[in-house]
């Protein structure tokens, strides 16, 4: 009798799903929460910020060139008399869009290639893995520069370049995950009941290899933002007058002696955003992938 009651009790108590559990783990890490706070702040800034800032991004007031930070211009003005704060707020939109789009593109392409390589093995695996090896043989920023050198400098081409250089990271990750999953019993069972390859891949293997992709994706957004800013800084990414943070830094170099604030704030924005994604990624890794916990 008592046993039956216990059983009922156990059934009525909800077993938390894997995502709820992951969130509980994530929530425990203060540093990860700080990271998420920073990221949410910048996302909010990218979405609503442009409606709140005092000045337009390209409002030139030549009489107010290179003014230091003040009550009117919190972050000062640049060489065209443009409000730096307003430009940084708009810049969040550019950096985050590039970061997310590039990472989504490389995660999707990388996952497809990784799944094909891991699931089908043999020559498919050999070809795909060798291509990844070759791409990883280049320092990533150099490969990005090469792609932009060919396609021509622009924000769109910088995004394409960043997406391309990140493909092998995701591809390898998924491939190794698929290799370990495909030997699991439930996959053998699925195959035994005659399930088609495509269905096994997309309804069993893919969802079960998502956790590391999410972790890697969060960290990759951080690198993608730095890479986009680096390309912008080198003049190979966003072009004037776009308020891209890296481009703003490049423009600020000329005024290092007279107006260092033109350099300090865009850089700070890049660093904080990247820090946010890195902290959040570390926290996610601990929560989603307990084996990697240090």
């Amino acid at each position, binding site marked *: 009798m008592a046993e039956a009651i216990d059983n009922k009790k156990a059934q009525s108590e909800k077993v938390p799903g894997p995502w709820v559990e992951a969130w509980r783990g994530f929530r425990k890490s203060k*540093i990860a929460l700080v990271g998420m706070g920073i990221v949410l702040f910048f996302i909010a800034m990218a979405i609503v910020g442009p409606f709140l800032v005092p000045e337009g991004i390209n409002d030139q007031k030549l009489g107010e060139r290179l003014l230091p930070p003040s009550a009117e211009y919190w972050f000062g003005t640049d060489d065209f008399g443009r409000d730096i704060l307003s430009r940084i707020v708009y810049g969040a939109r550019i950096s985050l869009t590039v970061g997310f789009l590039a990472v989504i593109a490389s995660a999707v392409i990388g996952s497809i290639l990784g799944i094909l390589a891991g699931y089908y093995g043999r020559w498919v695996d050999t070809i795909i893995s*060798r*291509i990844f*090896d*070759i*791409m990883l*043989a*280049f*320092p*990533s*920023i*150099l490969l990005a*520069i*090469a792609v932009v*050198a*060919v*396609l021509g400098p622009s924000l769109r081409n910088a995004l394409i370049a960043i997406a391309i250089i990140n493909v092998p990271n995701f591809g390898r990750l998924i491939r190794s995950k698929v290799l370990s999953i495909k030997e699991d019993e439930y996959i053998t069972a699925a195959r035994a009941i005659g399930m088609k390859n495509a269905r096994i891949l997309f309804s069993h293997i893919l969802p079960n290899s998502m956790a590391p992709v999410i972790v890697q994706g969060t960290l990759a957004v*951080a690198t993608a933002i*730095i890479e986009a*800013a*680096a390309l912008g*800084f*080198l003049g*190979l990414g966003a072009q004037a007058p776009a308020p891209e943070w*890296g481009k703003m*830094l490049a423009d*600020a*170099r000329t005024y*290092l*002696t007279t107006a*260092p604030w033109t*350099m*300090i704030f*865009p*850089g700070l924005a*890049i*660093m904080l955003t*990247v*820090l946010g994604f*890195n*902290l959040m990624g570390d926290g996610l890794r601990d929560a989603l992938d307990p084996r990697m916990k*240090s």
Partner: protein
Amino acid sequence: MLNYAGRRLLQLIPVLLGMTFIVFLIIRAIPGDPAQVILGQQATEDAVRALREQLGLDDPWYIQYFEYLTGLFTGDLGESLRTSTPVADEIWPYLAATIELSVFAIIIAIIVGVNAGIISAWFQNSWFDYTAMVLALVGVSMPIFWLGLMNQWIFSIELGVLPTTGRENVRDPVDPITHFYVIDTIIQGNFDQLAVVFRHLILPGTALATIPMAIIARMTRSSMLEVMRSDYIRTARAKGMKMFLVVYKHALKNAIIPVLTIIGLQMGLLLGGAILTETIFGWPGIGRYIYDAIGFRDYPVIQSGILVVAFIFVMINLFVDLLYSFVDPRIKYD
């Protein structure tokens, strides 16, 4: 071990071939007529035709690729369109400048990073540990081009203690022998110049060192923490050995292996970071060489510059892999 080294070298062949193919594609992938794009819209038809011929653009691609490869084997890296000098002849000084900067940076990163990691692990949860790890977290997220500018602003412009750009005093240039200026000035016994060279290395070197330093510190700390909990460390401490010796003599030996992996990876990444650092500090290295070539659409230089850097990158990774087995005899290669 030799067997393993040989196999790794063999595996490298397809990777290297693939690299040359990607680099080969750079010119061919330019949309439109590459010769026209390189020379600009005002170019005469004859000039375009001559360049097409020089680049071999009229042959089928596999013949072009084969010729490109045979050229590479004979040390032909193409000719710079800007200076009309063979790339192979002019690339060394740039390469040497980058290697000197990278080696300087990795030495700083290792010395500071490893020691910060050790002390953090030794005094876990102390204020030093917290400060070092927060700094390391910030360091990993640092855009080095911004850090470079901050360094320039603080140390050159505000404090005026270090030079802003370049690698030597232009009014008293170093007489190049190897093009590694530190070595050259030592060979010549010119220690005043050596000091100048060092002063020029500090800002770009520390900027470049920041990210690897942070990563090395974090890795050393976690690796040390793990080792410090093991039985043989407890034994060493129980027999009354000085803590300093326990940490630096016993624990470090085992904790350093994963750190070496990271150091190897960072060596390669430094080459990428060097491109940005060189642009900021006017450092006449290979990154700057490639970057300037992009501005001039000097495609042979872009091609060969990228190929040379990627080749070094691959070689460093191979070397690091092989080094492990020397450091840790427990690693077996089947």
